[in-house]
């Protein structure tokens, strides 16, 4: 769907797993869900977060693939591994900074979220972002996103020295420009 972007707002997630269940209904990977839904620490909180593929501009999974099986389309969507090429080595699983790809052992194939390109190519929103009851997953135009939400969508992430820019946006509290996930980035160290 031209002009639409995918937004993730972890703070809205209620852990219902509607996305997980709906993902498994998609035509290209029936019965298998590509979404990760994590509860941070259930003893302390009900907080949870969904994780879809972030569709990196320069995908680490593809860089790490020895079989050249992972391709990014012109639409910026990084596809699941090509079945004739994938050797199920799990390099991509280990390399992805967001922890997204999964190797389906019985199929000897890496599969991951492909942003429902079978749906978006015919004018339907991705399944997870359509059903999500809290709209923690949202698929709208940037103008609509700006109208709906107060927080800031970012698509630049720092993992240590690696900067990753993604097609998918993530909401951060107001004032944030990017997300640093490495403890080191918050440390003061003597030169």
């Amino acid at each position, binding site marked *: 769907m031209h002009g639409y972007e995918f937004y993730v707002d972890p703070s809205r997630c*209620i852990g219902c797993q509607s996305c997980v269940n709906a993902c498994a209904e998609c035509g290209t990977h029936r019965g298998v869900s590509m979404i990760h839904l994590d509860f941070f620490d259930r003893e302390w909180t009900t907080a949870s977060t969904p994780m879809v593929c972030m569709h990196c501009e320069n995908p680490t999974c593809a860089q790490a693939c020895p079989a050249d099986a992972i391709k990014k389309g012109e639409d910026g969507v990084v596809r699941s591994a090509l079945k004739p090429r994938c050797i199920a080595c799990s390099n991509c699983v280990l390399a992805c900074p967001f922890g997204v790809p999964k190797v389906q052992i019985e199929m000897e194939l890496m599969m991951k979220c492909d942003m429902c390109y079978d749906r978006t190519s015919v004018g339907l929103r991705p399944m997870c972002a359509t059903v999500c009851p809290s709209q923690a997953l949202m698929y709208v135009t940037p103008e609509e996103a700006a109208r709906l939400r107060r927080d800031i969508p970012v698509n630049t992430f720092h993992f240590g020295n690696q900067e990753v820019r993604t097609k998918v946006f993530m909401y951060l509290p107001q004032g944030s420009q990017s997300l640093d996930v490495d403890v080191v980035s918050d440390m003061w160290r003597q030169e």
Partner: protein
Amino acid sequence: MAKPPLPVEELERVYGPTLNYTPPGGWTQSAHHAADRLVKTHCCFCGQQCGIQLRVRENEVVGFEPWDEFPFNRGMLCPKGVKRYLQGSHPDRLLDPLVRTETGFRRASWDEALEATSSGLRQIQEKYGRDSVAVLGGASLISEKSYLLGKFARLALGTRHIDYNGRLCMVSAGTAYKLALGVDRNPNPWADIPEAQVVIVAGSNVAECFPITTDYLWRMRDNGGKLIVVDPRRTPITRNADLYLPVKPGMDTALFSGILHVILREELEKREFIQNHTTGFEAVAEYVKEWDPRRTAEMTGVPPESIEKAARWFGGAERAMALHARGVEHHSHGVENVLSIINLCLATGNIGRPGAGPNMITGQGNGQGGREHGQKCDQLPGQRHIDDPAAREYVAKVWGVEPDSLPRSGYSAVEILEAIHRGEIKGLLSICFNPLVSLPDAGYIREALNKLEFFCNIDFFLSETAHHADVVLAGSLQEEEEGIVCSGEGRVIKINKAIDPPGNARGDSRIIVDLAERLGKGEYFRFASTRDIFEELRVASKGGTADYSGITWERLEKEMGLYWPVPAEGHPGTPRFFEGGHFKHPDGKAHFLVADVKPGGDPLDESFPVHLTTGRVVSQFLSGTQTRRIGPLVDQIPEPFVEIHPELAARHSIANGDAVKVITRRAEVTLPAMVVRTIRPDTVFIPYHWPGAKSANRLTHRTLDPRSKIPEFKSSACRIERAGAAPGPNGKPAGQLKVLGAR
């Protein structure tokens, strides 16, 4: 005798629950996506009634597609809605009527089963009198079936005793709204929620029980509004609450009295509104005088500063809403609890405007509609009272009978089971109700079912209650008959038929009409279709409170539903009640009523020092008759568990995953512990969807609210003991059970 003919395990081997994971034809066949058509309809589960499109191939539901255009949910669905289609073409589906034998059930012809049912019921009535037979219905039935069932009980059986499982839903709210505002309907459309500046969510696990409402609340916060959550548990909706009030179970009236106390002390009340549009304010103001924040804090466990803050926010807002659900309603003083919330809204003038009002979140699919057209023990169609002479005269005329021939008010749901237990009621016809799982004090309910001399159950799966039946009539799923429901908003919507009942199963409405015929009353039931029933319902509701006379099926589809009353064709419907301060009492005013803080019916003492509260999880629905058969939903949360705060757990040396025995004055149940800091340390929680040894309702008690007759599910006295690492199902240690998110 209505004891199950075989041990439960053997019945379960034949009739399930079996877990269904794949659509008809399986995943691997491309057939999954080759649907003939999409049928626009609504989810069969909760009162949100999300729009959904069912994928249909030949006579099977093979999947779903979100329905973006339906304005309430705009494509959104919870996991139950997503996987609901797996209840179709299910291996457990009853495809023929069953008749009980010495060794189980055998398939029977419709002629035999219907004859056994009509003669079984007739013989009991001849021997013991008309009122020795009762009818139980359900709030998942479309309104046409609810209407038909009420008429069937009154005319075909002539019994006083018909009630429904909506009695376990929002009846305390309905009673309180009728008392205070003159009508039992939710006052605001959901589109009002994002307009509010402050919303209190009281006793409602919105994220798990009404997931779509989450989006409305988050949008309210996006607009700058504040969310206040009142609950003994930090449920997922609390993650973005601006203020959390961890109320002690059963102390809601005290908390809302304390909040109103501060509002009046700070002179935040709307004097002009109170003066012009209400009565009874002074008595309420006098009552809350003693509920200062300090005393309220002592009774509720909510800090005084939080009470002050809630009062200032709610009282200081131009537009404030208070949403409530079973957490405040499931008490022996549930009506008081709701009245205390209504009083808060009336005192601050928060009613009858966009973004302002008290609102009940109705739980069941047709929870609103199912309580409007005569399925309740004291009700005739159009939300009329059965003991009102004018109502009797009007409805009797529509039905073509003498007013005096209509029975008077009968027993409510729990009272019907109690009358069965003491031998007063001997025969039962039940549909869409699984009282063995859903009613309190399950051991007692089982004894009652065992005493029935004749029991017929209409159902699509063999529920735990149906194990006790003499005859089981294979009925229909929601997607197999066409009709209407009324959602929690008060929006009447259209349910479309996707398929015919499979095998020899039949539409519920046809079954009831056939039974009426065999009972010699066919002349009053000349319905060839549910549309015929709807057309009579329109006439029967005309002039009543819930007036549907201007509603047509065509308008519902075209206009995406209509909010009742719709008293004439062309009438736009009534999305918001009480605009301009006009209330539905004869005096046109809202009535403040003193809500007295009262103790519960199962008080704590030294032997039972902990509150037990029960509720739902996101992936199961009510007694689980449908959702415990859907594989992915069962996998999400396979077993019940006991939520325990680490402080309480430590006192009993309980670690996460240990087996814990929960003991009440009635029974004990052993379940795995889920040790979490998201619950008050004086309270434990168990979800109630499961039967047998894992049934939370073995522990609960039968105390009813004297006015609404709702059971007190939300507070029982219990004690807990560590029971070791007792084996769970399949011989696995309980600690290894997969409990959602637990470690």
